[in-house]
């Protein structure tokens, strides 16, 4: 059980305000878990904390990858060691071409200067998978991208970087039906024994394309219920009300 991604009793504050209040979660490699929960429950906080965003302070608990605590690692080191976050709101970096950025990122992840031809071949392959044309990578990073394009661009990065553990924060929001299918297809190809994935979502729809091994529900900074894929279906029909009641009861 060492090849897992583990979150233990995680407490996180933002500007001294406690947001996560003891999250426990284990995602073994090879599995896909879904994380659902009402707005403001702390899902993105968890995602950002996993990558070490400086605004989020871990006040208690631990995050472990393959048995090793990652809390001391800087964000860039976490990424080089195989963590990935597909952002809910990817930010724009004017003047930086997607291709240059991806090459820097891939070199960093590989720990060496990759052969340029090799890199571009791989890039072309992944872009084809995501139904992107070659003009895409000449654009400036997320600048002027539509909401859906930004999301797709996140998945392109994920496919290029081949993480060991990835968090997808509401990648499905803002994608049209065709784009969602394309993205799901890309993720499914990446899926396998060497990667663990945590999908944060509000909708069961994406989970129809990417079947999760488990579904967790986060309410007010705690995981209050876990179950199989049926839990998502149930949520879709009944909302969160019944859970909150169940928890209080």
């Amino acid at each position, binding site marked *: 059980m060492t090849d897992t991604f583990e979150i233990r009793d995680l407490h996180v504050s933002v500007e001294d305000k406690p947001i996560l209040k003891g999250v426990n979660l284990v995602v073994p490699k090879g599995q896909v878990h879904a994380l659902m929960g009402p707005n403001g429950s702390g899902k993105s906080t968890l995602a950002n904390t996993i990558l070490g965003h400086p605004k989020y302070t871990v006040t208690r608990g631990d995050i472990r990858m393959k048995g090793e605590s990652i809390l001391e690692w*800087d964000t*860039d080191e976490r990424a080089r060691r195989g963590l990935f*976050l597909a952002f809910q709101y990817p930010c724009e970096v004017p*003047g*930086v071409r997607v291709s240059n950025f991806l090459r*820097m990122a891939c070199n*960093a992840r590989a720990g060496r200067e990759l052969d340029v031809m090799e890199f571009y071949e791989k890039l072309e392959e992944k872009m084809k998978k995501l139904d992107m044309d070659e003009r895409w990578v000449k654009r400036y990073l997320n600048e002027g991208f539509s909401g859906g394009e930004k999301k797709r661009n996140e998945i392109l990065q994920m496919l290029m970087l081949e993480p060991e553990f990835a968090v997808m924060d509401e990648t499905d929001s803002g994608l049209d039906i065709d784009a969602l299918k394309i993205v799901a297809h890309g993720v499914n190809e990446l899926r396998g024994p060497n990667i663990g994935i945590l999908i944060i979502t509000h909708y069961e729809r994406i989970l129809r394309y990417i079947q999760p091994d488990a579904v967790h529900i986060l309410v007010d900074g705690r995981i209050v219920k876990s179950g199989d894929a049926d839990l998502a279906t149930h949520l879709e029909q009944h909302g969160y009300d019944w859970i909150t009641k169940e928890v209080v009861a």
Partner: protein
Amino acid sequence: MSTPVTELLRSHYKEGFHDDLPIVRAVPKGLKHEVVDYISDVKGEPDWMREFRHRSLDLFLKQGLPDWLPGLRDEIDYNEITYYVSPVEKPQRRWEDVPEEIRRTYDKLGIAKEEQKLLGGLGAQIDSEMAYHNIQESLAKRGVVFLSCDEGLKQYPDLFREYFSKAIPPEDNKFAALNSAFWSGGSFVYIPKGVKCDIPLSVYFRINAEQFGQFERTLIIVDEDAFCHYVEGCSAPIYTTNSLHAAVVEIFVKNRARCRYTTIQNWSTDVYNLVTKRAMLYERAVMEWVDGNLGSKRTVKYPSCYFLGEGGHGEVLSLASADRGMWQDAGAKMVFMAPNCTGRINSKSISGRTGRASYRGLVQVRPEATNCRVQVNCDALILDEQSRSDTYPVMEIKGDLATVEHEASVSNVSEEQLFYLMSRGIKKEDAVSMIVNGFIEPIVKELPMEFAVEINRLINLQMEGSVG
């Protein structure tokens, strides 16, 4: 003397070395009329020039600094500066004839190699004089003149006198007066009618002496329908004292001619860089200033376009990076004196590690200049809280039907951008570099490849170690 700070700077500024060069000629330090006479004697100048120099020195001593220019009042002790130093006898036309020590200096700067990259001509000034100045045979045959300014005066006395100081008289400003008194070196360029000199003429300015004033003077005449691209670069050692570089550059772009003047200013943080650059545009002339300021202690420089003839077009692309110990006071000036002219100013500045960048711009549309159009864009990127950026645009619009657009922005390297890039494995300093390079990309992509590469190299060097 080395201090920890100079050591630190040296590690990022590879041009910061100095060489012990034998001095061929020098004057005692200080502002003196005898120095003016000495320079005039050494150069064997006509009387009118000697008188011009003396008059200019008087003007300098009388003239105050303009009110809008902050600082500088008591910073420079003009009597501690040496106004003429030459480690060379005269400019050579063959690189082999340049004294070996000086060739070694230029080797270290990678200058000799430059010429092999097919420049139309190359000049190399060290302290007060040109050590080397030569032009490709094919261009010389087409009548292109590319000489040191001193040689220009000797060989083309009438042409020289017709234009010299006509764009920038010594009365213009205090530093123009100082240059006019002590000028030495710089280039004299004449492109005959219709000749397109499409390979760049390039000059490199090196200061080696300490507490020294370099007063390069450049005069460029691009005759009707001709084209010229002139490129200058520069550097200086790191001492703990200050030097002065007060250049005057005058350009005349005649009817339908075009001139592009590119500067990559990389002085050490010992150098006060107080430069006046002005182009006179005749009918439908095109002038492009590409002004990259990446070094110096203080730069005061606003490349200007004066539209004398109808239908001219002027551009200033200004790029300033103010690192620790620097204040880049850069910008542009456009003065419209004829109808139907267009201008564009595009300025980007970066300030980091206590550096300071100011954009100062003047757009003046005189009453007779109807139907002119000008677009000003200035963006500043501030890397940290210790650094500073200011914008001082002045617009005086008197001409009818003028279209003036002005856009300005100030941004920071945001935590979110850094987090985003770092979350992909990119190290913090590389992430900052990326953001900075992205910020200047719109200007850099308009530059020829080799300058773009050089500017990116210098910026990346500055970014190294600029984040904690």
